[in-house]
């Protein structure tokens, strides 16, 4: 028996062998505000206070907490007795909201508890203290600067010296009543109090634990599967293999090439393939059963890179061959272009596979409900696609499957594919019990699709004055074992590989190849992260060869209204690239005397050298390429005069809830707080399409806007009938309907709808402007976002270590609907780009994963976070809601090349492999000391 005090409440509990404190809090006491991100003491999400000191509850034995005081996120807000739900937030919770520090929200309880521990020990911490204390509490949305500001303000309040101020973020230059103003997230309070529900936070009686047996071999044929030992494990309820699949055998977002389970004599294509799934009473039983399943593999030679996959004579991993797609861009004639150029340069670049490393690992809970329908609770970026794929796998019609989207603890493109959804549904169907499949970090790293590793060759021909004449690129993309979104991703990489520049002649060829590596799919930037690194590096190399300023070179060639892109699209509006370049340049030149791209010694240590680097980028908004891009939205009026807007698109930290609320409030001319947002439920919300391609503000936002507009029409028509007047005679203003001097509130309007027996809601389907497939010319995309960034690095010339000190960013987003959310998204995107440049490499050797734990895959922490100065450029796009276009990806794309260009400027070392290897930097600087080539 152990006694433990949690949030002031004493508990007497039995000791459970092997139990960690996080499990006790979450599963025994139901305090699910404490999150488990990695379960290996790396991410800090599970931080709670033990006698006031922050500890990692995921690896702290529960029994060790006996006799101690535990404080969790649930214990921070002051509970008010009447009414029970109303709480007085702790200053930290209030400050996190006011600063916009809350994004996906999954790490936030851990951030707040770590911060609380800091403030208890040090009531007045400085920036350095905060960085030290939060060093290992990771936020993948990277709201670190806002978190720091929140701690400072909360500390002041706790000392009785100050108050919490809103983060200093400018409103949109196009601000209206609601859009463009600073607003809190609708779900912010739930996220700072630990009440927000992610998939693993819900529980059903009789719920079983499901797990998949992974192959751990990258290429083989399964010859036998022996379940006899596994069946003997106590607590096992079901074991399924491919032989038990009665319906679909494969799933896939675009191509149905991904086996649900690999059967006897079928091909294993990567280490994360599943051969069996089990459901058990406990995690321990499930783990034991998985270990007890014996599989005999007939190992095959591994194809571990895309160049090898294209060689003649190698094994074809799929019936369609190893080539997923050859993607071509053709404009003019590059040979003519190169022949007429004054200077031609070329170089080959390599980028590593990278992992999303969202702090919330994948979790699906499936259950057959009382009506015999299948419900799946999952944090998914594409609920309707999950529904389709789950239905096909269990042989249900789609309307008998309901996907209930939970909050998503970071997605970044990594929660678009099926992970545990189908397996959980199959096991729930088999056992009749609810089944939960929660990946641990190891499984998450092993299984879900990554960012494509690429090899990109770029060749540029230019005139002496810097004008580009021809750009040619050749890309190899490692799409891994299965297609996922590989074709689309590599298409985007290819069409953007020419950069945001005008060139009369362009040619790009991309080979998206299947290999035996983990699949590659969507990841923030969608291929453009890779191709921007290549083209922007070569642009700097060109500037050096020509002896021109790198900013000037870009300005001379930058896309503008009227330009024709490499795919033959004439840009009609909203091309703010030149203004982005100018904003960054002005800021940069105001800070640095002389050439910002020249190396300067660090004032306190001349062996550390600083320099700035520059880059631009562009990124499409929306699916494009001829794909119909649509979103449905509902708007419904309630008795109390509030509205709800609904669509199935997902909130994954990017701020869709806030954006939809502000857009609908704007159109209806009511206070934002009067608009509620419901997302991601296939029974309750219409299909909003995939949450991908920076398309939510534009496409789902437009759907919300159109729904609100149509609802106003519906109000007019209902009132016109009731008051017997022309609909045009009715004005809807300030949340009121005005009819010939009579004023009705929305609550009154609701009553009128009821009287005339009309439902007070509307459903609309918004169709974005049509686009053309690649190769047909015309509008391949309906909008592009643009950006420029400058990064200042400091290189330790002794060790080769690189630190990013500052980033200046300018981003053309059309119009800023949600400036507070945008501010942290710009900073977070830059930090993710920094990770892509400096810390992140998902490593495999012969198809086997080396970085199979969080401890081996490092993402940026608060200690890496540079100061970010952000300028929002607003060139409205006519077809966007209030002029807005996509934001999510563009903010991250220019950062990596800005950093690597800065490294060149500081040291003369040209980074052509990502991530930056500090050893190679040191070798370049001290070339004479190194005789052997680096063997890496």
């Amino acid at each position, binding site marked *: 028996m152990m006694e433990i005090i949690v949030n002031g409440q004493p508990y007497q509990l039995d000791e459970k062998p092997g139990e960690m404190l996080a499990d006790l809090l979450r599963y025994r006491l139901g305090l699910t505000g404490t999150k488990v991100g990695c379960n290996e003491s790396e991410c800090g999400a599970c931080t709670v206070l033990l006698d006031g000191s*922050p500890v990692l509850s995921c690896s702290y034995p529960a029994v060790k907490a006996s006799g101690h005081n535990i404080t969790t996120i649930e214990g921070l807000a002051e509970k008010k007795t009447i009414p029970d739900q109303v709480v007085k937030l702790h200053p930290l919770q209030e400050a996190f909201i006011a600063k916009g520090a809350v994004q996906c929200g999954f790490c936030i309880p851990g951030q707040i508890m*770590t911060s609380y521990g800091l403030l208890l020990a040090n009531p007045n911490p400085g920036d350095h203290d905060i960085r030290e204390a939060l060093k290992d509490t990771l936020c993948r949305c990277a709201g670190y600067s806002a978190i720091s500001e929140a701690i400072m303000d909360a500390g002041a309040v706790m000392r009785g010296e100050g108050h919490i101020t809103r983060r200093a973020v400018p409103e949109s230059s196009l601000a209206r009543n609601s859009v463009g103003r600073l607003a809190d997230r609708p779900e912010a309070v739930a996220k700072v109090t630990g009440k927000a529900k992610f998939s693993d936070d819900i529980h059903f*009686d009789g719920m079983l634990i499901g797990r998949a047996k992974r192959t751990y071999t990258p290429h083989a044929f399964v010859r036998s599967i022996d379940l006899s030992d596994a069946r003997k494990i106590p607590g096992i309820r079901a074991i399924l293999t491919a032989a038990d699949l009665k319906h679909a055998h494969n799933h896939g977002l675009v191509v149905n090439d991904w086996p649900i389970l690999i059967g006897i004599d079928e091909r294993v294509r990567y280490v994360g393939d599943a051969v069996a799934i089990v459901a058990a009473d406990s995690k321990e039983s499930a*783990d034991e059963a998985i270990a007890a399943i014996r599989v005999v593999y007939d190992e095959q030679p591994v194809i571990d890179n895309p160049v090898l996959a294209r060689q003649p004579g190698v094994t074809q991993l799929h019936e369609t061959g190893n080539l997923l797609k050859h993607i071509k861009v053709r404009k003019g004639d590059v040979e003519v272009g190169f022949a007429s150029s004054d200077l031609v340069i070329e170089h080959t670049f390599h980028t590593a596979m990278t992992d999303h490393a969202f702090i919330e690992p994948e979790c699906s809970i499936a259950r057959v409900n009382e009506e015999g329908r299948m419900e799946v609770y999952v944090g998914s970026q594409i609920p309707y696609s999950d529904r389709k794929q789950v239905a096909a796998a269990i042989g249900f019609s789609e309307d008998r499957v309901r996907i209930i989207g939970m909050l998503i603890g970071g997605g970044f493109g990594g929660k678009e594919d099926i992970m545990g959804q189908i397996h959980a549904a199959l096991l729930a*169907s088999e056992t*009749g019990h609810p089944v939960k499949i929660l990946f641990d970090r190891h499984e998450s790293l092993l299984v879900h699709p990554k960012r494509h590793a690429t090899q990109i060759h770029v060749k540029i021909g230019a005139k002496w004055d810097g004008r580009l004449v021809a750009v040619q690129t050749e890309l190899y993309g490692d799409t891994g074992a299965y297609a996922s979104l590989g074709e689309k991703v590599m298409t985007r990489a290819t069409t953007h590989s020419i950069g945001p520049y005008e060139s009369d002649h362009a040619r790009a060829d991309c080979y998206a190849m299947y290999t035996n590596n983990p699949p590659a799919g969507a990841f923030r930037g969608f291929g453009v992260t890779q191709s921007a690194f290549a083209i922007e590096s070569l642009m700097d190399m060109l500037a050096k060869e020509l002896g021109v300023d790198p900013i000037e070179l870009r300005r001379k060639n930058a896309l503008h209204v009227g330009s024709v892109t490499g795919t033959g699209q004439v840009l009609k509006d909203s091309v703010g690239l030149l203004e982005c370049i100018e904003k960054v340049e002005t800021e940069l030149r105001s800070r640095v005397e002389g050439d910002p791209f020249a190396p300067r010694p660090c004032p306190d240590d001349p062996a550390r050298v600083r320099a700035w680097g520059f880059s631009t980028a562009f990124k499409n908004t929306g699916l494009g390429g001829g794909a119909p891009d649509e979103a449905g939205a509902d708007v419904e009026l309630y008795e109390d005069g509030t509205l709800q807007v609904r669509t199935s698109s997902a909130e994954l930290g990017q701020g869709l809830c806030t954006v939809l609320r502000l857009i609908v409030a704007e159109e209806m001319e009511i206070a934002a707080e009067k608009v509620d947002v419901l997302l991601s439920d296939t029974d309750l919300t219409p299909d909003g399409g995939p949450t991908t391609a920076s398309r939510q503000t534009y496409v789902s936002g437009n759907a919300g806007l159109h729904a609100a507009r149509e609802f106003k029409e519906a109000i007019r028509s209902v009132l016109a009938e009731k008051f017997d007047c022309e609909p045009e005679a009715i004005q809807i203003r300030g949340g009121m309907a005005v009819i010939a001097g009579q004023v009705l509130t929305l609550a009154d309007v609701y009553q009128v709808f009821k009287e005339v027996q009309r439902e007070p809601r509307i459903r609309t389907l918004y169709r974005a402007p049509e686009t053309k497939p690649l190769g047909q010319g015309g509008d391949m995309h309906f909008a592009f976002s643009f950006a420029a960034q400058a990064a200042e690095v400091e290189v330790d010339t002794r060790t080769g270590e690189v630190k990013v000190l500052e980033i200046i960013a300018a981003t053309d987003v059309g119009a800023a609907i949600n400036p507070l959310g945008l501010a942290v998204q710009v900073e977070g995107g830059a930090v993710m780009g920094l990770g892509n440049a400096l810390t992140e490499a998902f490593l495999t050797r012969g198809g086997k994963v080396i970085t199979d734990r969080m401890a081996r895959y490092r993402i940026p922490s608060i200690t890496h976070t540079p100061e970010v100065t952000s300028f929002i450029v607003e060139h409205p796009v006519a077809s966007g809601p209030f002029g807005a276009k996509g934001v999510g990806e563009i903010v991250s794309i220019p950062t990596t090349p800005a950093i690597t260009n800065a490294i060149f400027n500081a040291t003369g070392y040209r980074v052509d492999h990502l*991530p930056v290897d500090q050893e190679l930097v040191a*070798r370049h600087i001290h070339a004479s000391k190194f005789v*052997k080539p680096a063997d890496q």
Partner: protein
Amino acid sequence: MDSVVAARNPGDGVGPDARPVEKCRLITSTDPMTAWKQYYLPQTLSEAIQTINSCNPSCLIISGGTDLLLELTQRHRPAVENLIDVSRVIEMSAIEERDGRLFIGAAVPLKHVAANPLVNKHAQALAESTGQIGGPQVRAVGTLGGNVGHALPAGDGAISLLALDAWATITSPQGTRHVPLLDLYTGPGVSSLIPGQEIIVNFDIPVHQAGTGSAFSRVMRPQGVALPVINMAAWITVDKAIIQQASIAVGPAGPIPRRAQGLEKFLTGKTFGSSVLAEGQRILLEEVKFRSSPLRATAEYRDHLAGVLLERVLTSAWHRAVDTSYARVS
């Protein structure tokens, strides 16, 4: 097509008609395999010894457990019957000066070691190194005993202790022994401690005399495992601007942490300066052969960094030593 599920009464679908019997045997979960069965938290050394005796032989001794518990939960180690957690043992929890030596309890959390005034006075290298192990949450739980017991060739705490000429007190049901730190190491990740029997009680180092100074430094890679590419600690005694005694430890330079005795000998009797440093760097590379580790560093890079770190730790230790020797004069 989906009649199986539709026909089932939801919530109790474990009856024989719900699924083929051979596919799943319903056995009530009684005794699932867990990382451990019994967890002991002895409060005194004698209690710890008693627990060891009563659990013999199937027990594992842990301290903060920040590494070992992960090895258990990730099944890199077989599950154990009994875990004996010695992090609350009172005799292992003090930092005190006694008989000219500084005793540091093996169970003191790293964050307290790093912040302790005695450690900062007598063993700056140890304060610097323990302040860099893991993150703050790990340092609140992890201990110096665990850092040494884990026996990594480049444990930050261990490298500093080694340079500071630390000894360790080990106890077990068989008795107590007092050994030089290096005697605890047999190979990478393998200590000479008898598993399930021996406990590191504390470490002791000579207290700071006027004219002594120590320092620690390391270089990490931003990618991959958070282990140092190379780390180094120095402890020197300076009198009248002459190095009287030098002690340099470096890792990873072989299966276990090591001292650079040739370098130590060379430095003794010298005044620190650029030519001594250059010659010292040469001697260090002559006696210590760094190796390449895939994905982390080549031997050549480590050679280069060894020179960088030697300059860093010697410069820092020299200034600290000279500052205190001036203090003595004045």
